[in-house]
């Protein structure tokens, strides 16, 4: 049986909370930088992306899909 003391758990969880509230992880920073580059480099694309996805949003039957089973507008 492995024994773990709550004092160790408290210390590590406290330190983790202090860290993640002030420091974003390396992958997140890179993704945000990539997002910044994407936003700044392709301004002309902003206008045409949305209409294409709105067709998908409406669905193949032209309705505001998806249909939901007895829950009105779909809020659970």
């Amino acid at each position, binding site marked *: *049986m*492995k*024994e*773990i*003391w*709550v*004092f*160790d*758990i*408290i*210390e*590590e*969880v*406290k*330190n*983790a*909370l*202090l*860290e*993640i*509230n*002030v*420091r*974003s*992880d390396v*992958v*997140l920073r890179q*993704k*945000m930088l990539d*997002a910044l580059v*994407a*936003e700044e480099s*392709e301004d002309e*694309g*902003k206008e045409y*992306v*949305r209409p*294409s*996805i709105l067709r*998908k*949003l409406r*669905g193949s039957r032209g309705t*505001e*899909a*998806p*249909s*939901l*089973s*007895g*829950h009105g507008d*779909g*809020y*659970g």
Partner: protein
Amino acid sequence: MVAEERRLPLCQDTGMVMAEIRVGSEVCVRGGSLRQALDEAIRLAYREGYFRKSIIADPFFGKNTQDNTPGVYFFEWVEGDHLEIDLLVKGGGCDNITTLGMLEPGSTPDDVERFILRELDRKAALACPPLVVGVGIGGNGAYALFLASRALSRPLGSSHPDPRYRELEKRWCEDINRLGIGPQGVGGRVTCLEVRIETYPCHIASFPVGLVCSCHVFRRKTLRW
């Protein structure tokens, strides 16, 4: 960078702490209960860090608990001699767009995608995008939301082990970005950083889909003993 150097919170909303705890069958926790330990850790961290305390003791009649406790905890008992805690801190804004959809049995990936796109088209701007989007499919209604939360526990950059779901995660992320909502909802190409999917068997007469998102300040960490 500024927050890290000056020990300032990344966002003024330092959120409610959620933890998914996996306790091995060969583990004995000494000195108190895990729940008390986690609450104490939150209490100490939010005091020491001067983080905003955002929790009220009762939704209708409560006052601020003054120490950001309690957290929200999910316990699971597993085999082995280890203890794992997935910490996730989420602010109120992104939690407010949490949605449960009970779709028709036999729904397809395209049906689920339309549900996600429709919800995010209405709400994503309220949740401080770019978002990390968790999608829980299956189980029952309550479990689908739990699965969606659990999906957010995966580290950034990790992909689903099943190539079919990996492909859906990639496609849905691209399509969410085509909504044009953009960072902080002011328009742009990047509304979503990642989509993660978690699934579970479900009843033949149901098709629950949980949608849980994290804002761009994606605060998570896994601890292991």
